[in-house]
């Protein structure tokens, strides 16, 4: 196995081409290669090695502009993202409307491992309700699969990547079987206070689940559970697990992790996949389309080698798209042929329809009880330790909106960075001098910020299509977005804001103003939360969906989707763990279909 060039890739016959190297592509490539399939992974960005490229202990004064966010690095200089953001040079997208509230903002990361290098590592399972939302409230779509279908894959993914958390037995917040989870870290002081006061509002606060190793993975028992009957795969993953260190309780996960303590595709999926000898990786290669023969079977992909600008072709028995929801849509729509004039998989006309993001809103406050606390190290696991899962399932009828949200909140004495003010400037006066420094020490660590993360219901006004005029720098037609939040999301945000303000008061803080009751003012724009899914939704029949329950396109049976594009709903739970579980399941299906000679 190796990183290959376009010419060497062209000489080989692959079983499967995997487009994309993030959570979906990485998991698909892992599962396929561990079971012996020969895979070519094609990534649009450059190679990236977290072991040598992660700024672990650099302080912000070592970076330009104190590492604060810029259009070049929106999450700050040390964020792991390379060649990414809401705009990528040379790779535009457009919006049909000039009204900001009707626009979608598309985040991409052009690098090996994609967004998994910088993600928050929040690894929540969808619950049973989340696969059958229409059956519960008549809105959106049911998935053609249930929680029971996905559960074994959640188990396996958790054991493979390493997830901390615990079982709390809460409604629609699934527990994991014994042996899946790692112990959660202790809560920080602000998290404890939020938990105590949240209880008075009926809000449960429990350990969050994050893909961070709080202790080394159990390499002696897990491999046999992941790959029963496959001694070679067991040996490879057992060895790789021993090369991942547990968290040393410092540095933010958003920078990536050189000791491989958290999940990134580049540190968890790709090294063992490469060790099988079955994985070739082609970087800096932008897939343009899938090629289909006269019989309606995919034969491979057409891609642009970014270094030379030349168009190339690679062949395989099957193609798995894990390019990220909207990029997968783009490849499908650009795969026009005589047989499929509207794009591949698009007989239903639904490719690009029902794009969803997570509903987001923020509110923050200052908590006098947390002032002047003695210095202690609150770095922890480089992200959240606790959160509040959605708690009002029983109140659905009286909320005025469907579905719900979970709450992520951050507090504590994190590493000072960016241009954050350290003083509250009471009475509007700008403090300075020794009194300012005293205030700064007093208030540092006494703020809490809440983020609601809620479910959006798919709607007909949120979609993407090919722009009829605009192409990227390689001449590939780009996506044009249309976006609209429904009243459900708007009202949900108003509920979030009220809850957060109440919570701050319950913690003894005061709100300078109460939140605006109009959720439109607070709702984050489409794409801001970077949880876009949908666009090639799975379903029970070919007329109303793009793929079947195995994420296999109805139209072309050797084309599969291994990313968020197949989501038929977007639960409040962060999508990454579900993407991985489904990608594993889909890769199993690819292997089955190949064994049976169907593809």
């Amino acid at each position, binding site marked *: 196995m190796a990183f290959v060039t376009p010419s060497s890739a062209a000489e080989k016959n692959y079983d499967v081409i995997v487009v994309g190297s993030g959570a979906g592509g990485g998991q698909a490539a892992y599962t396929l290669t561990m079971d012996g399939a020969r895979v070519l992974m094609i990534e649009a960005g450059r190679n990236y090695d977290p072991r040598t490229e992660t700024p672990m202990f*650099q*302080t*912000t004064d070592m970076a*330009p*502009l104190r*590492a604060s*966010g*810029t*259009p*070049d690095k*929106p*999450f700050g200089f040390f964020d792991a993202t*390379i060649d990414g953001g809401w*705009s990528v040079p040379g790779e535009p997208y457009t*919006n049909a409307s*000039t009204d*900001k509230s009707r*626009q979608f*903002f598309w985040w991409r990361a052009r690098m090996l491992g994609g967004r998994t290098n910088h993600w*928050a590592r929040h690894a929540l399972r969808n619950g049973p309700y989340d696969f059958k939302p229409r059956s519960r409230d008549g809105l959106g779509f049911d998935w053609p699969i249930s929680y029971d279908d996905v559960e074994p894959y959640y188990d396996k993914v958790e054991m493979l990547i390493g997830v901390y958390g615990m079982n709390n037995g809460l409604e629609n917040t699934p527990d994991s079987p014994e042996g899946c989870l790692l112990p959660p870290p*202790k809560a920080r*002081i602000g998290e*404890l206070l939020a938990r*105590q006061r949240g209880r008075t509002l009926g809000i449960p606060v*429990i350990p969050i689940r994050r893909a961070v190793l709080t202790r080394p993975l159990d390499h002696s028992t897990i491999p046999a559970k992941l790959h029963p009957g496959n001694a070679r795969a067991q040996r490879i993953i057992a060895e790789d697990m021993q090369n991942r260190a547990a968290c040393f*309780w*410092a*540095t933010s996960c*958003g920078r990536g992790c050189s000791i491989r303590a958290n999940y990134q595709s580049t540190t968890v999926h790709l090294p063992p996949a490469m060790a099988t000898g079955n994985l070739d990786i082609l970087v800096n290669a932008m897939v343009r389309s899938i090629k289909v023969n006269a019989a309606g079977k995919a034969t491979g992909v057409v891609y642009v080698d970014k270094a030379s600008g030349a168009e190339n072709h690679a062949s395989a028995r099957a193609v798995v798209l894990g390019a990220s929801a909207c990029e997968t849509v783009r490849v499908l729509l650009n795969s026009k042929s005589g047989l499929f004039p509207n794009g591949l998989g698009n007989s239903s006309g639904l490719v690009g329809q029902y794009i969803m993001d997570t509903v987001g809103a923020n509110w923050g406050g200052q908590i006098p009880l947390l002032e002047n606390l003695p210095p*202690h190290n*609150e*770095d922890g696991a480089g*992200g959240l330790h606790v959160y509040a899962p959605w708690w009002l399932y029983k109140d659905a009828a009286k909320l005025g909106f469907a579905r719900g949200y979970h709450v992520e909140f*951050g*507090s*504590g*004495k*994190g*590493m*000072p*960075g*960016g*241009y954050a*003010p*350290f003083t509250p*400037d009471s009475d*509007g*006066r*700008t403090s*300075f*001098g*020794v009194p300012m*420094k005293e205030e*700064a020490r007093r208030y*540092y*660590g006494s*703020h809490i*910020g809440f983020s609601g993360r809620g479910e959006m219901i798919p709607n007909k006004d949120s979609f993407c299509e090919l722009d009829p005029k605009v192409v990227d720098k390689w001449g590939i037609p780009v996506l044009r977005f249309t976006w609209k939040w429904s009243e459900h999301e708007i009202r949900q945000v108003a509920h979030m804001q009220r809850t957060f303000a109440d919570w701050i008061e319950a913690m003894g803080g005061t709100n300078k*103003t109460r939140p605006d009751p109009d959720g439109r003012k607070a709702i984050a724009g489409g794409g*801001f939360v970077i949880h876009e899914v949908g666009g090639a939704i799975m379903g029970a029949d070919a007329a109303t969906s793009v793929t079947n329950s195995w994420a296999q396109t109805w139209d072309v049976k050797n084309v599969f989707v291994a990313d968020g594009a197949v989501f038929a709903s977007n639960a409040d739970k962060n999508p990454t763990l579900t993407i991985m579980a489904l990608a594993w399941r889909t890769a199993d299906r690819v292997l089955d279909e190949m064994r049976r000679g169907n593809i």
Partner: protein
Amino acid sequence: MDRRLAIKWMLAAGAGAMLADPFALGAPGDGQAPVPPPARGYGTDPDLMKPYKPGDYWPLTLSEGERRTAAALCDVIVPAEAQAPSASSVGVPDFIDEWVSAPYPNCVKDRTTILDGLAWIEAESGKRFGKGFADAAAAERVSLCEAVAPEAPEGSALEAPSKFFRRFRNLTTAGYFTTPVGMRDLGYIGNVPMATFDGPPADLVAKLGLTDEVKW
């Protein structure tokens, strides 16, 4: 509180969920066409392992006089104390120069505010004390800052100077509290590898009437 302030507080909290706001960063506003990369920014793939200092990516542009005024103002905002040095002695004026010289939208916007403000404070010092701000006596420098510290009414003569002072103060504190010295001064003691994470000290938990005894 508006969303941007909430986001700043999230950033201040440090441990918070990752958040960025494309509008606040000056990313493409209308989504019709992406803003071209800044002519002389660090680009989308800078070497993250290398330590940088102001001036490495784009030239510093404050004049000698402006830097002198800025340094003096920095030190009124963060003066030397027994346990901690002043802002200018840990390079904060270099950071402010880097900031106002940078090609990014936020910085370009601040550049006008800061340059106009430095000119105003220099002129005002001449008017009040008959000498430049950096040459004024310590008490004179403080008294001038006192004049612009309150929030000035809209349309008043001090509106722009007071806005400048707030912005300059924020840049100074951001610059200072992100240095190793400033982080220590603030009480940040992380960024060190540890074998275990033990949570907050037990006596602190008890003092706040909290409990971490729930089994998790």
